[in-house]
């Protein structure tokens, strides 16, 4: 398979990656055996740790805290240079000086989810019971588990009510879970390009990704860490498939069309003749530099299990009964992974609960990824929503 072989090897060693897993270059909250994390699967995870970044300062009233929830392959480095890749923070379009979520006004917190691989406890961490990497012995986690762990972090930081919880995609799922599980602790919620449950099609794509990882002989039944290797090829293929779902036909056509990569004629081989192939291979190979394969399995699984209505007797509106949180729901026209219809179902449930909700669908051809890109209308809406909520929250006038 020339095509797969040509995915370049990662530039960093497995050692560097595992260093961020155990000793992240972020702040870390340790939770000892007296504070276990009770998981939905019935297991108490203990001890565990959460790696997080903060920006800005908590005000005297402790009323300006904003929690950013990251998406599937994101991490806590929302607005700073990434310690592994050296790239800018993944949401610097939205978070940072002069941005809608400005550290001048807000105390911004972003933590790596439980099950992640950037310093919070996950399958790539060391299992204290065995002294070895957890691998598939790590318990299966859910979105509610991630949020439960975040709530413990927020407690640790001495914050009772978050001014806002903000996230897109899997981050948006966490936002919704926060409002359903801790309605009194979330003053406003900005849920972007997400849904209250993972659709059959999305589960199918995740299963494809997981099978690609598992089909890599280097995966070793999940025990690759003991062998000192990493299933790069399987994980890269998983990322390539997933990446297609983050874009749109129109965006791919605009960006690449049928253009050739550094050549004028086809090579009549399985080399990356087309620019779009070369782009996808790059996406795959750069991803494996910073992500753990087992962590990818666990986090995709958590998204698959997510279904807020199922946790509330099958009636979504019950999850938000009498909620006081101010909601802003945003979707993008070309997002086929979390289409507008999913957001609309959420909005209907929020209406049925008489919740205060704004809902905007933004026109763009950039697909699901639009929430991470430079889409001015999205920023205007986010800024106005948070300013209006800030006014209601009584945040001081330095808010403008």
């Amino acid at each position, binding site marked *: 398979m020339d095509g797969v072989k040509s995915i370049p090897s990662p530039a960093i060693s497995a050692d560097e990656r595992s260093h961020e897993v155990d000793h992240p270059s972020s702040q870390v909250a340790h939770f000892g055996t007296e504070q276990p994390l009770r998981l939905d699967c019935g297991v108490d995870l203990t001890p565990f740790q959460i790696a997080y970044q903060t920006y800005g300062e908590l005000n005297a009233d402790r009323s300006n805290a904003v929690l950013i929830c990251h998406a599937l392959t994101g991490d806590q480095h929302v607005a700073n240079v990434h310690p592994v890749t050296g790239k800018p923070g993944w949401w610097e379009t939205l978070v940072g000086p002069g941005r809608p979520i400005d550290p001048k006004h807000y105390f911004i917190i972003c933590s790596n989810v439980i099950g992640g691989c950037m310093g919070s406890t996950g399958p790539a961490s060391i299992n204290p019971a065995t002294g070895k990497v957890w691998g598939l012995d790590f318990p299966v986690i859910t979105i509610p588990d991630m949020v439960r762990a975040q709530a413990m972090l927020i407690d640790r930081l001495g914050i009772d009510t978050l001014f806002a919880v903000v996230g897109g995609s899997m981050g948006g799922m966490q936002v919704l879970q926060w409002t359903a599980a801790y309605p009194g602790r979330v003053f406003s919620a900005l849920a972007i390009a997400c849904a209250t449950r993972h659709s059959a099609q999305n589960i199918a794509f995740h299963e494809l990704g997981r099978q690609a990882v598992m089909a890599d002989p280097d995966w070793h039944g999940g025990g690759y860490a003991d062998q000192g290797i990493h299933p790069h090829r399987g994980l890269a293929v998983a990322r390539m498939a997933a990446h297609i779902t983050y874009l749109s036909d129109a965006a791919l056509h605009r960006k690449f069309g049928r253009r050739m990569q550094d050549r004028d004629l086809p090579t009549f081989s399985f080399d990356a003749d087309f620019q779009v192939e070369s782009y996808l291979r790059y996406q795959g190979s750069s991803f494996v530099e910073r992500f753990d394969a087992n962590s990818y399995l666990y986090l995709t699984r958590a998204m698959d299990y997510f279904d807020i209505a199922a946790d509330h007797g099958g009636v979504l509106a019950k999850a938000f009964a009498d909620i006081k949180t*101010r909601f*802003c*729901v945003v979707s993008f026209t070309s997002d086929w992974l979390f289409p507008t219809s999913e957001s*609309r179902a959420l*909005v*209907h449930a929020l*209406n*049925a609960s*008489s919740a*205060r*909700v*704004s*809902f*905007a*669908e*933004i*026109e763009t051809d950039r697909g699901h990824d639009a929430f991470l890109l430079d889409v001015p*209308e999205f920023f*205007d*809406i986010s800024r*106005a*929503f948070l*300013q*209006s*909520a800030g*006014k209601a929250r009584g945040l001081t006038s330095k808010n403008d």
Partner: protein
Amino acid sequence: MSVQEVLPLGGLATGQSGHFRADHLLVADMVKPGSKVLDVGCGEGDLLQLLETRGIDGRGIELSREGVNRCVAKGLAVVQGDADTDLVNYPDDAFDYVILSQTLQATRQPRVVLENLLRIGRRAIVSFPNFGFWKMRLQLLIGGHMPRTENLPATWYDTANIHFCTIKDFVQLCDAINVKMERSVALDLYGRPIPLNLPWWVWNMFGEQGVFLLSRGGGK
């Protein structure tokens, strides 16, 4: 349905007080302070902003994406939706008032919409252009064509207004579905209320639009 699309109220836009439209001021005066309001067909959120200045908790539904996004960018709680199809999602008694401003004539089922307004809200405030207005009558009678005015400039084939009615028609509908009219105001072409002591037929003839505060009738 954007108000601008349905009914560009040119004559009213420069209404009596400041930058707020005369009919909006009239509607806002009907709402008790501290209440919870849903504005169906809220356009670009002008009425919601007016209500906000009076400390009223306002929400909106708007059909056009551009209108919704402009509202949300003003910090208003507005969702994209259709009066004909989306009101059913709201529970009974969710609001103190539900407002339908210059939108009734553009709905597919005005009667069902009106019933929903008074299910969701304890009161409804409905305003609409009066097709019994003398200028309308004259155009049909003398001109022999479907009426067009500066406030309703669209031709019959491209108008979004598919269910025109007169003030008299509306009153009959309210009677038929047991809706109580708590307050009724007709505004003339310049947005001024027509004196209350004049008989109904005067309103129906000289009212350019009607504004009604409604509640559920008894004995249902």
